[in-house]
């Protein structure tokens, strides 16, 4: 599945020269990412290289110091200092079209799993409660925790929580999805399920940014892979070329360990 830019449409997600710092620590140092409709873009890189931060910026959860973020060609309007998104209705429009699976899951502790999944579609999108419930149950079944509908997050195993978080994102049926290490707590079998789901989503035309440590998965699902190193893009390209013939030394070293065993 080679990356096929569709020049007639503007990209769903476009990040231009983004800079972000926490206090004195510069975490993102000028990063560009473009993802068109149906694109799956993977972000790889070592721990602490800024992958989660980049996703959080894309979702407007973090302020950033410099650079642009565009959705469907529409640039985010900023204001203030430190700058932050200026237009609440724009933020809302963007976020309802964009679902995120957090690295720490962030399930709402006071709601059952089913409520967690149903909450946003019902409250934010105003969809019909019964319809949403049916959809939520089917998504929970899809990720294999249909029997855990009525328990609270604290009673789930790590992998079950992660799957609930994925179901929650899917149930929004958004234009684009942001996955932060969506299979970190999953066994290979379930990982395959998730890979299947991601492929289906891409076929439906949804755009995805995926942070992952799993090179096989990155190679498997992506149209485009970005290797982040200390807040900068060290190398990027189609998975075949990137994994097959890495150019930069850093990436070669990084990939060497994957093959080591």
């Amino acid at each position: 599945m080679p990356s096929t830019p569709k020049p007639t449409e503007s990209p769903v997600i476009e990040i231009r020269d983004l800079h972000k710092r926490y206090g004195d620590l510069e975490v993102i140092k000028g990063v560009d990412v473009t993802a068109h409709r149906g694109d799956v873009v993977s972000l790889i890189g070592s721990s602490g290289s800024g992958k989660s931060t980049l996703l959080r910026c894309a979702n407007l959860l973090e302020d950033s110091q410099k650079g642009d973020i565009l959705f469907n060609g529409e640039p985010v309007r900023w204001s203030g200092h430190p700058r932050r998104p200026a237009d609440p209705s724009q933020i809302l429009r963007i976020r309802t079209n964009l679902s995120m699976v957090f690295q720490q899951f962030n399930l709402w502790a006071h709601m059952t799993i089913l409520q967690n999944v149903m909450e946003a579609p019902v409250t934010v999108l105003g969809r019909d409660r019964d319809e949403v419930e049916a959809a939520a149950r089917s998504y929970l079944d899809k990720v294999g925790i249909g029997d855990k509908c009525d328990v609270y997050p604290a009673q789930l195993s790590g992998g079950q929580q992660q799957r609930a978080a994925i179901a929650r994102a899917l149930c929004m049926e958004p234009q684009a999805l942001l996955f932060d290490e969506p299979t970190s707590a999953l066994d290979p079998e379930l990982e395959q399920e998730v890979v299947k789901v991601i492929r289906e989503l891409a076929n439906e035309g949804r755009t995805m940014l995926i942070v992952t440590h799993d090179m096989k998965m990155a190679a498997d699902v992506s149209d485009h892979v970005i290797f982040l190193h200390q807040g900068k893009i060290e190398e990027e390209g189609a998975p075949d070329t990137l994994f097959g013939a890495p150019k930069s030394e850093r990436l070669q070293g990084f990939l060497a360990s994957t093959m080591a065993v």
Partner: protein
Amino acid sequence: MCTDPSQLDQFSWLACYLTTPKHMALYWSVGTVLSLLAITAPAALLFGFGGATSARSRITPLRWFGKGYIAIVRGVPDIAFFLFFVIALDQGFEWIRHQVKCPDWPDPIRQGNDFIVCAAAKMPLGTAPQWVHETYGFFLAVLTFAIVFGAFAANVLYGAMRSVPHAQLETAAAYGMTPRQTFWRILVPQMWVYALPGLGNLWMVLIKATPLLFLLGVEDIVYWARELGGAKTARFTDYPHADWRMWYFFGLLVFYLLFTRVSEVVLDRLMKRLTHGQATVGGEAQRKAA
């Protein structure tokens, strides 16, 4: 010269008026109130800590004692408590001293309505100078306040201890910490974040309870403000005036507001230090503001 009629209506009249020995007593009582708070707060915290720890103790009688203390003292309005507890406390002390010092005393302690202990058991001794009596009264007031507010503090701390995420304690156990170590190293340091808002509130309530001090026999600022502010006829004072309680109470209001403001600033600082780097909305706001 202060009562010189020619000086009435002048600034110097006010200067004289505000420096009468009676006003000095008012200013002195500000010190009394402040020192009472300064001693009561740590004492109440200590009572609270003791109450909270015994309420979660494994030893059943101790747990009952802790829970009973919290439930009963917390259940009684402070006014009602003050109206009879100090006298009871005082009698209690004298009764104990009487048992120790005058074991051979022939007469009963209760004679009709009277409560009579031997002279050596009196608290303070009948011969003691007035300031000893006042200090003793002050001490009783502190103790009463500490017992009352200790119960509320115990409840806040008890709740805060339960708010610390269980995983944090479990981890400590997994690393071999004894319950005691877990308590002191993990639970106690973490509970403050959860306890501070409640304790801060309690401190505010405590400040606001000082007007009840006069029920305990301590002449506090409100007592003096009432006394000074009430209408005065020329027969009993060199400074007759109408009902000026409005102004005195306004002064009190300013005093309490200022005091609250200072407390808030200090509590805010504390809270900032406690939430620093924590994964909460407060910690996040602090980070984003930086």
